[in-house]
């Protein structure tokens, strides 16, 4: 069953074409990897899907609903959420509040109820609270819930960022270079963690990554981008042997 269908996505950055004619049909429960050298348009693609930038041309259907042109928060409520290449937590807020912020779109009470702490407020807040506590416990961060996010070590900040994304109750999770700055042992842990998360939360995941080991290790399907254009789409084995990829991506890497 198709969850996300992108067709003809094109995005210009002042004359420069950051993404050209990107097409994708993503099934539920897939774990898709996107690779490509720096500047290939991977993050731009995420920005388009999440509504940060608006595609110049093309359409993206998520569960058969158009998302191009919608605001980021609408898209989150529809069930797409992402993490960031450089961690972007709410630094001065506590771990718990970082999680609770992400419940914004899932809360049903009106501003008036919020101002008066009346009506559905209490019940909903209790629910958010319980959900957040469970989530933190599941991520083994329950004991840290009162800590300010900025005080966490790097690895825990990454973990919190994923937990925060999951608090929005997404169907599709976009991970932007989750393994950046990790040593091989941590990458192994991360691979387990991503697999576990996908299973536990029933997610579909798109992953941008430079660490080939991670991508090849957990993705069953990989798309390779170069200069905004899709140059290959297939299983890890196919990608590894694809001449275009070798030339554009691995070739470049070898030179480096």
């Amino acid at each position, binding site marked *: 069953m198709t969850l996300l269908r992108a067709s003809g996505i094109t995005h210009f950055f002042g004359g420069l074409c950051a993404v050209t004619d990107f097409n994708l049909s993503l099934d539920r429960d897939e774990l898709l990897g996107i690779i490509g050298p720096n500047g290939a348009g991977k993050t731009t693609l995420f920005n388009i899907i*999440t509504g*940060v930038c608006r595609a110049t041309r093309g359409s993206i259907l998520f569960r058969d609903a158009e998302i191009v042109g919608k*605001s*980021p*928060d609408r898209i*989150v*409520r529809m069930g797409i*959420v*992402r993490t*960031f290449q450089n961690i*972007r*937590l*709410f*630094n*001065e*807020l506590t771990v*718990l509040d970082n999680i609770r*912020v*992400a*419940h*914004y*779109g899932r809360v049903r*009470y009106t*501003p008036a109820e*919020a*101002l*008066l*702490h009346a009506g559905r407020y*209490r019940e909903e*807040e209790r629910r*958010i*609270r*319980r959900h957040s*506590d469970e989530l933190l*416990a*599941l*991520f*083994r961060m*329950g*004991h*840290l*819930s*009162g800590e300010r996010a900025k*005080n*966490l*070590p*790097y*690895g*825990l*900040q990454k*973990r919190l960022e994923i937990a*925060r994304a999951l*608090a*929005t109750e997404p169907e599709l999770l976009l991970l932007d270079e989750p393994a950046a700055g990790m040593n091989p042992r*941590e990458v192994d*842990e*991360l691979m387990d*963690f991503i697999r*576990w*998360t996908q299973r536990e939360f029933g997610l579909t995941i798109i992953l941008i990554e430079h660490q080939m080991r991670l991508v090849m290790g957990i993705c069953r399907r990989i798309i390779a981008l170069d200069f905004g254009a899709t140059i290959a789409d297939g299983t890890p084995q196919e990608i590894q042997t694809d001449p275009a990829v070798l030339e554009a991506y691995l070739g470049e890497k070898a030179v480096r």
Partner: protein
Amino acid sequence: MGRAFLKKDLTGKERSQGRWVLPVFLVSGSVLSFAIPHFDLLDQYIQLILVYLGINIILALSLNLVNGYMGEFSVGHAGFMSAGAYIASFLTVKVFPAGALAWAFPAAVVAGGLGAGLLGLVVAIPSFRTRGDYLAIVTLAFVMIVKSALENIDSVGGARGFLGMDKLTTLPWTFFWTVATVWIIRNLIYSRYGRGVLSIREDEIASGLMGVNTRHVKLIAFVVSSFFAGVAGALFAHVLQFINPRMFDIIKSTDVLVMVYLGGIGSIAGSILGATAYTFLLEALRPLEIWRMVLMPLMLVLLMLFRPRGIMGLRELPWLEPAADRLSSPNGLNGLRNSRGANGFGGKRKDE
């Protein structure tokens, strides 16, 4: 003030202490607010200062919502205040019958707040597109526009000012509105909108990408903030019994800014403290005459150097937080903690 007083490491047990402070304060405060003027427990001068104090708390707290909690830099508070002052005064003087002022006054105050809130809506819209310094300019220009407009409206006296208001702002009313402001703004902060406000301060883009409707949140924050600025203006007009456009110039805005940043951004207790310190110091330093105005900014600069976020920056008195927000959750974390869960990645706790 000791650390125990400002607990920031949140352990449930200590948080639950001091719960009695709030109810005791509310009850004794409301009794006193009636008793003081009735039995003349304090002289008129101190009563007047207490009224100013209430108004200043309302102003500081409402500005803190936008500047401290949301992290914008608005200097438009004087404009909202003047809107509230003029609307309420116009109503009590020219519209409501003189005999009905007892019930009409609260209505006038609310109307003043609503009028200011409406202006807040207008100012919020540019905040969708711009932030920081550009928004500061928008609000600065807003203050000048409102002042200039008022100078040109002859039916409210133009530059000569508007008068004829009765002294309707009593101590009980001041107390009521101060408590209402603290309560409602606290409620807002400890709701999903309040967390949205905080997340905008921390990282607006990430906030939107975590599902926060940033436009909606900004609108609410601006409207609530300007509503209470309007309320403060209405109360102010009915204690001075005279208003003119010049009272609400950019200097007034900077006074409120000083209160907010003195007391501490992102803290209700901070705003209360900042407004209190400001109001009382201004009066207590009177014997210094001109040097009072030299000393005050100097103290502000020194405070900023040693406490850049203000006295209570980003911290809160525990008994101002709602009971439901306490960290000791009914489920008990320990039960959940190690039952099942991620084979964590990402290293150890910092303190291990």
